[in-house]
């Protein structure tokens, strides 16, 4: 772990977030890619101060190797991110082929709900609820 790498990871998170907060799907995917890079970097540097590669050939002192567990986890994460990116690309392509744009529009159902507000009912003081009981 080192300050430089930590700062790089944080900047990747920041730029990625900035790109994600948009409506063009292709740009969101790029932002997500940056965030993934930042996260992977964070996990690797979280594993310690580095070291020689964790390959125990002859002459390698096991005490000096880098922590292999975060590496294995990040290796998995890299490949999974690849799959996710491909899926998102497919979504963007499909959206573009169907609508002519890869923009994410506002959800019409959510907008309808947002506009709809229950009226605040003022109870009628003359209305006697006790007559209502059947």
């Amino acid at each position, binding site marked *: 772990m080192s300050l430089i790498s930590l700062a790089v990871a944080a900047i990747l998170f920041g730029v990625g977030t900035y790109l994600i907060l948009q409506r063009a799907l292709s740009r969101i995917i790029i932002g997500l890619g940056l965030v993934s890079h930042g996260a992977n970097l964070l996990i690797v540097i979280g594993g310690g101060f580095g070291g020689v*590669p964790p*390959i125990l*050939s002859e002459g390698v002192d096991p005490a000096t190797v880098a922590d292999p567990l975060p590496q294995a986890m990040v*290796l998995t994460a890299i*490949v999974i991110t690849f*799959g996710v990116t*491909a899926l998102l690309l*497919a979504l963007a*392509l499909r959206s573009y082929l169907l609508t002519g744009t890869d923009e994410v529009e506002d959800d019409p159902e959510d907008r309808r709900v947002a506009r709809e507000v229950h009226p605040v009912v003022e109870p009628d003081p003359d209305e006697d609820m006790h007559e209502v009981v059947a």
Partner: protein
Amino acid sequence: MNRRPSPILEHGVVSAAGPMLVFSLYLLAAGHNQPGGGFAGGLVAGVTVVLAWAAGGPDTVRRIVPVRSSVLLGLGLVIATLTGFVSLVAGGAFLESGYLERTLPLIGTVKLVSPLGFDIGVYLVVVGMSLGLVRALGGEPPEEEVGS
């Protein structure tokens, strides 16, 4: 792709594809003791597929890897799972590794570890994935998938 790919480029890629695939197999085989493994090997093969697609389109891809992606995906999953069960049947835990050591004539001592089977499965899945993604996102479905 509508434009006619350059024949020189196509030829170059096809001749380079063989060594690249061999290199990917080397990474796969060496991965247990050196950098590499099923993921890295599969990805090298995947890059080969992408290059072939860029050079000559789907037909060139089929010349290099004449298998459908779904076959590779399924085969890879089956091999990986079966390897796990082998050690289960042999009395160990799921995916616990065992090994065979034989001295073969001419080659010398060969150590065959069961994780290699698992890594082969990983390799096949990654190659199948690259193939499937290139075909789909490349946007020109090969003939045999169109009608099905």
